[in-house]
Each structure stands twice: as C-alpha cells, then as structure tokens.
C-alpha cells in the first residue's frame, strides 16, 4: 500500500488540518508516513501545499517526485491546477469549487473549470454548499477530506478516529460536526461515482 497525496489551498484554508487527519488515520493503521508542510511567509494568504506520503514500507523522500502523486486534493479550484506536474497519469484531482479570490488577476471560473475537466480523473465538489447544508459552514475542508477519502485507501473508521483526535480538545459537538462533514463529503462522491460510473468528467456541483 502506498499513496502519495498533494494537498493544496491558500494559507489559512485548513489544509494542515486535512493533512493531520489523514496522518493520524495512517498512524492508527501503523503505516509509515511523511508529511511536508509550508510554514512561515506563504501562510499569509499565499499558495500553500503539503506533500503527504503514506506507505506500508519505509518512505525515503519528504517530497513527492513529479509525476508520482496519486491524488491532488485541493480546497480551492485555481490551486488544484498548480500542482498538475506532480499528478501521475491515472491519478485523481479532487477540488472544492469555491474560488478564494485574493489576487487582482484571478482567472475566470469557467476557464478554470475547463482546465480541470481536461484531467481524466477529476471531481469538482461544492464543499461549501454541502457544509452549509449540514449546518457547519466552517467544515468545508473536512467535507473535502471526506470527498477524497475513497481514493486514499484507508477505512472510514480510521479517518473518523483521526478527526476525533484532532478536534477532541474543542469538545464533543465539534467532533460530531466534523465527522458529519466527513461523511457528507464521502457520501456525495460515492453517489456521484456510482450514479455516473462512466462519466467522471461531468463535474459535480
């Protein structure tokens, strides 16, 4: 078992929380793990990424080599495209559909969508709407984790254990809310994939 995942977003959007959830899920399973993060200057609203590698064998590099990522999981559509050189030919690109516009030359959303649709295996998820529907607007990053979780190859219960460990300090209600967000993301994608098994290119959301 070996999964190389690029997590992408804008500083402050919570990709490190996603990374930590996957990391703790992998530890529950006694897998090897390396996770490189960006700290410091770029965290101030800049493009940020995290390289997350899990495997049942030892992992050498902290960085994923170009062309080797099994999954690009992005919480922002423009950012999902920034790491395409890392994605392997049959890898998945899973992204939130809500743009984070903090630059003057942000491209047209339709153009971004068109570029994403050129990737063979892609999913565009309206995680903001889903998190709103379940009454937790701040959990869209965990919805995205749920949406991408079926491509990671770990049991749902392991992710839930990871989420529990991360949010435990904030109280039972916060844990429950985030587990619900995770499930909502996962269910959405499972429905999407089973319903349209041959047309992944139809963007969801």
């Amino acid at each position, binding site marked *: 078992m070996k999964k190389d995942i690029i997590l992408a977003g*804008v*500083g402050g959007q919570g990709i490190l929380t996603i990374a930590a959830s996957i*990391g*703790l899920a992998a*530890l529950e399973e006694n897998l*090897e*793990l*390396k*996770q*490189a*993060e*960006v*700290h*410091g*200057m*770029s*965290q*101030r*609203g*800049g*493009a940020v990424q995290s*390289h997350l590698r899990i495997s049942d064998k030892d*992992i*050498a*590099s*902290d*960085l*994923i*080599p*170009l*062309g080797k*990522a099994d999954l690009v999981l992005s919480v922002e559509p*423009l*950012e999902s*495209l*920034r*790491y*395409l*050189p*890392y*994605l*392997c*030919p049959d*890898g998945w690109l899973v992204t939130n559909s809500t743009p984070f516009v*903090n*630059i*003057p*030359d*942000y*491209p047209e959303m339709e*153009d*971004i969508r068109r*570029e994403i649709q*050129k*990737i063979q295996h892609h999913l565009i998820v309206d995680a903001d709407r889903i998190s709103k529907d379940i009454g937790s607007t701040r959990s869209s990053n965990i919805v995205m984790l749920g949406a991408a979780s079926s491509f990671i190859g770990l049991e749902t219960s392991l992710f839930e254990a990871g989420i529990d460990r991360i949010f435990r300090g*904030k109280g039972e209600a916060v844990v429950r809310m985030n587990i619900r967000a995770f499930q909502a993301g996962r269910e959405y994608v499972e429905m999407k994939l089973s319903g349209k098994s041959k047309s992944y290119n139809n963007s969801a959301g």
Partner: protein
Amino acid sequence: MKKLLLLGDEAIAQGGLDAGISGIYAYPGTPSTEIMEYVQGSSEAAERNIQREWSANEKTALEASLGLAYTGKRAMVCMKHVGLNVAADPFMNSALTGVNGGLVIVVADDPSMHSSQNEQDSRYYGKFALIPVLEPSNQQEAYDMTYAGFDLSEKYKIPVMLRITTRLSHSRAGIKTKEKKREKKLVLPEDPGQFILLPTFARIRYKGLLALQPNLRKEAEESPFNVYFDGKDRSFGIIACGIAYNYVMENYPDRIIPYPLLKISQYPFPVEMIRKITETCTAVLVLEDGYPFLEEMLIGLQKKGIPVKGRLDGTIPRDGELNPNIVSDALGIGYEKGKPVPGLVTNRPPALCKGCSHADLFTALNETLRKYKPGRVFSDIGCYTLGALPPFNSINTCVDMGASVTMAIGAADAGLIPSIAVIGDSTFTHSGMTGLLDAVNKNSPVTIIISDNSTTGMTGGQKSSATGRLESICTGIGVNPAHVRVLNPLRKEHETNVAIIKEEIEYRGVSVVIAQRECIQTAARRKRKAKQK
C-alpha cells in the same frame, strides 16, 4: 511503544527534553520556530520547569545557553541560519571557551529561501568555529542526533551544532523515543580560567581546540551516522550529505544502489571515508542541500583528482534546495512529469491579512509621502515587509533585523531628508534599539515608525519582548518625549494618523511614531480562547 508523529523541529525538541536539558533559548525564525514552541507546549517541560522563554534575539539566546552550560547543566539554543549571523560573536567564542554541561546549537537553514533573505549554509560556520556538526537525513535522526549531540558535547567539552534545512524542519514522520535522562546537577567548571578569553588564556584555549581536531575527525569516521555502502559499479560514486541521502534512496525503490554510496551526517568531514570512495570510484557525485561545501573542497584548487559532479559543474543547479527530481537527473535515471501547469494559473503571493494594522499604516504613510519622490522608506524583517508589494509599494529596503533604523540614519547623513524607517515591535527590540541610540546621539533627522502589532507575527504570533513598553524604551534611550507619538492604525483614524506622521517627518530630529494595534491573528486567537473558557 507507539511512535510520536513529529515535525523535524519537534523531534529535535523531544530529543532535547529526553536528553535532560535544563533550558532552551531561541528567537523565532522560520524554519526553526517550532522547536521552542514544542517545548513551550510540553507538559513535561512545564512539570520540570525548564527555562523556555523567548529571548530578545539570537545573540542573547546563545549567550544565555552558554551561561546555562557553564553550570554543568544541558542547554539547547535554536535559530534560523541568518540568526546565527546575529549570534556569530558568542558562537565563535563558545568554541574557545568550550562548555561544562552539554550545549547543542540548532541552526535551521533555508535553501530556496522559502522564508528568508539568503540561503547561507551553516556548515561553514561549524568549520569556521572548529566544532562538530551533525546533519540529520530524517526526523528519526533529528531526534537521535540531538540526544547523542549532548554526549558528544560533554565528551569533548565543546558546543555541537545540529544543522537542518527547511524541508526536514517542516516535515512530519513517526519517531521512536529513547530512555529519558535526568537533568544534570549544578557543577561549576573545574578550570576557573576556562571561560575567560583574555588573550593569554584565549591562546591556550585555541591551541586546545586545535588539538581536539583529530579526535573530532575520528568521531566522524566512527560515527554511526556516517555510513559507507559498497556498490558493484565503481564507475561512479555518490556522496550524500544530510537530507540528500533520502533523495538518493527515493530513486531506488528497492533500495539497491549499484554504486558505492557514502552518507555523511557528521562533520568535520570523515576524511578516510571520503578518500575511500574517491579512490574506489572513477568519478563522484556530491549531493548537498545548501552550498557546494564538500564539493569545492574535494575539487581543491589543484584539480588533480577524479571528476567531481555536483553544483559547480552544472550537474545540479547552483542554488536552491534539492529534491528527488534533481537528484534523479543527476543520477541519470530521469523521470516523467505530469501535465504542465495551465497558463491561466497566476501567482498567488503572500499578502497582509484582511484588517491588518500594517495595511492601515502603509495607507497613511503613502498619503503622507505623496509629495515626495519614492525611495526614502527603509524597512525591516517581518509581515510588514509585504508592504514592498502591490497594492502598497510602500517600502524600499529589507536587509537584516534592525537595518531599517540604521540605514535611515546613513541615508539622512547623505542628505536624504526626510528619511523614514518602518520596523516591527519585535524586530525593534531584537536589533533596532541600538540603532535608535545612534540616532539619538547625533540627533539624526530620521522618523522611526514602529509598526507595533504586539507580537512576532510572521513566525506565527510568538510573544514580543517589550509589548506595552515601547514608549518608555524610546524615551529611555533619549528620544524627546514630545516626539514619541502613538497612533492607532485604523481606517477611521486615517486623517489623524496622516497628520501625526506628517508632523514628525517635518521635524528635523529623531522622532518615533508608534503605530499600535494588535495583530488581527493573535487578537482573533485570544478571543476564541476566551470564548472556550
């Protein structure tokens, strides 16, 4: 035992705690900040009540750690690479005084300048000071080397440097910990002259340090962290320093490497091991994250040895951090990229947060300076350095901690009046106060704006040394109290703020404008915490 999931920085901190440190000293600086933060968050450190307060700067931190090690106890000090420039004086001299208790000096380099002004390689400092340097290749080694570094330091009674780079500082992995050691007892040095670097004593100490060198080299030759792996194909040998070793391994998924490979993680250079690989192979590739430190020495000025590939012959880019792909190319393996980045993907540079006090200050400053030609705002290191970028374009320099104040003085000396400095509160207390004293002593016509958000913002909101005391510090240094002005950088105060800055810029003497409003991030965090209680 279950593994701990730790950043490289955190592994170092845990290694120090388990090795029985009695104190850790640091000034925040990416990528080293998380070492101290981990200790500050550790319940064990709280129970043992080990010293874990931030220092005013890296020099005070290193001196305090040396003082702690003077007493026979174990001390750790942490900084980013450019922080070692600030601490270079005590650093160099600590090699001569030596230590009594173990002292590990952690220096985190930032190749590729992810969050820094340069990418200097601290291994040169280690060689310069003639002390051992440990350079872990992964998180487990970061832990193990910190733990072992204290023993090495005490064995030879000298400080030991632990050098890491950003990638390892900020990457997580599972760590196996070792047995916890007790803290050492307070025992003063046997030799009362050891720490007195008067020339007569210093000459003796220096001879002693030189005499140690063969032993330190022998330690490196025998170190478990330096390993020679033989290989069948001797047309080529690989020397990989620190984290570069991982990138070599990444390129051989079955971990079988056809060439002889020397992994170097402890310095001074294990000369015999290096000779073995250069005598065995007909060419050698040197992989180092940072400068071509070993590579240059290996080639030498006479260029008589075997061909050396690396950063100097263009096999590897001369600048920037290594990665598995660069190493793949250097090994002649190659790789296949994914799809290219679409042309519409624009850069998203870091920016000041929404509601940031620096932003409102820059808006006011820009308006005040509209009647002047640009080029007279000297600035410094911090979040406010982003004021150099659009939409503000407010500042004209960023060189090193504190340089805003002193460069403004020099420019004013040359006749650039008004001459303005913009510096943060933490940077001011780090290295700006002495510059202000220079300004006061010659009544330099400069306006020093302290953009006081009451935190060390860029590194994530650590305590700032003199929160609430900046006015008294400035008047204490000798600034006329009538020209120490405080303003509140808020949009609704814009007109007032422009008027205050204008008055002080027109004043032909030293003036300080303190633009005081709490960092939006720390304020939000404080409110969230209060709500939880």
